[in-house]
């Protein structure tokens, strides 16, 4: 049994309630416990409205759990910070900054000097494959490119963990496949601990070392944990891949 500090991320009995207007209490998460090891790629899988984004935001420090706690490297998460890189579903790039301006914002806020942060930003822009687009504005980029900027921006702070909240939800199918491959490539190049939220079973199996699936309806509850032992790079049409896909589909309420 691993001790607490050997897990990178640990969530213990997290529950979250929101109070909506009219003092109505909505329970979004119910007793979630999970752990993530160093450099592991863990996928949280669940249909819409299952609270998975909220779980990610709790780990990011943007929400406070009603009960239970989340820890990073043994220390409790108490607020947002650059040690966790968050990639948003709707990109959330600053439209008034160029690509390189967006990526180097994190280092800039932490007081890193101009020359050094330029180099850092340039390095990560190359990592995500956007060399040559440094001076472009977000509105000139396609959805996939914008999300790559988002990934580079999160990486630029050299975070301990990367949190991705349904990052490819707004992309079309072709771009999505491409971005999944890119994500796998980027992760292999610069390994980090990753917590990836999605509602797409194919995506989960393609990317994850471990898949944690949540129940379909609110409040989100732990359903099943799947270990994915397929070797990388993975093929969507592999027999093992399809078998796992079949198992997950049967067990969950997600439809293909």
């Amino acid at each position, binding site marked *: 049994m691993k001790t607490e500090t050997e897990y990178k991320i640990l969530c213990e009995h997290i529950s979250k309630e*929101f*109070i909506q207007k009219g003092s109505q209490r909505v329970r979004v998460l119910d007793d979630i416990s999970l752990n993530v090891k160093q450099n592991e790629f863990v996928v949280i899988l669940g249909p819409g409205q299952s609270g998975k984004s909220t779980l990610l*935001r709790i780990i990011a*420090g*943007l*929400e*406070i759990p009603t009960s239970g706690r989340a820890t990073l490297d043994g220390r409790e998460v108490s*607020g*947002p910070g650059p040690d966790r890189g968050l990639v948003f579903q709707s990109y959330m790039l600053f439209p008034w900054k160029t690509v390189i301006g967006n990526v180097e914002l994190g280092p800039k806020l932490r007081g890193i000097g101009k020359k050094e942060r330029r180099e850092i930003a340039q390095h990560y822009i190359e990592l995500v494959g956007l060399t040559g687009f440094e001076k472009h504005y977000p509105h000139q980029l396609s959805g996939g490119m914008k999300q790559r900027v988002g990934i580079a921006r999160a990486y630029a702070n050299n975070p301990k963990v990367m949190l991705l909240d349904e990052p490819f939800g707004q992309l079309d199918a072709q771009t999505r496949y491409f971005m999944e491959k890119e994500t796998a490539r980027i992760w292999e190049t610069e390994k980090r601990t990753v917590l990836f939220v999605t509602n797409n079973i194919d995506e989960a199996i393609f990317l994850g070392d471990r898949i944690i699936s949540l129940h379909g309806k609110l409040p989100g509850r732990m359903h099943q944990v799947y270990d994915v032992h397929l070797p990388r790079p993975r093929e969507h049409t592999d027999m093992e891949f399809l078998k796992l896909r079949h198992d997950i589909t049967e067990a969950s309420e997600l439809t293909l």
Partner: protein
Amino acid sequence: MAYEEVKIKTPLLLRVLPVASILAFFGAWQLIISLGIIPTTMLASPSQVISIFIEKLSEPNPDGAVLWVHAWTSIQEAFTGYLLALLIGIPLGLLMGWFSVAEGLARPIFEIIRPIPPIAWIPLTIFWFGIGISGKVFIIWLGGIVPCVINSFAGVRMTNPTLIQMARTYGATDWQIFTKLCIPSALPMVFGALQIALAYCWTTLVAAELLAADTGLGYLITMGRRLAMPDLVVLGMIMVGLTGAVIGVVIDWVEKRLLAGIRR
């Protein structure tokens, strides 16, 4: 910001401050007159304004009519100009948005008229029509027509092109697409114009009355200045603001009733 716990109760201070602020405002206003910091020739205190308000409810002097008559004249003029602006401006804007012939003909004239603030027309209008009602209605109409045309035009231009293509595949004629698709599509923008045009019309009315009238709230304000009666001036100002606000609320209510169910 987003990561704080959602608080249900607003702190007591936040609920008290607005009320305290308003009270302090009126209190300070009353005090600077009562204490003589500002002479009564320059400004009237709230109590003086209230007393002349009560007086004007029945007393036609010194400006020639009771308060109600002034307000009603202003409202009449504003509304006539406003309705005319709507009746002419909205169809014109809608047609311009769809039919290139209409746009080609009307656009140059519109672009010439548009930069001229309606107030600039006042001397010319007085020259043509004199001080009567028709001149004022003309200026108000000019003031209100611009936002009507612009918004209606933009509303039609914003019609979803996919819907237009779909209508064409059904063999709809230009006119049919216009009446059955473009106009309903443009309704939210048109209703937006209603409020804006009203604000323009109301301000233009006040300006017109300030300069050339013998009844109306604007005239009341001017008379107050000429007779060195700041209480009359302030009364006029407050009535102008109040009436404008009330009409705005009425339009808003009409809009909500008519647009109920249509998603903006």
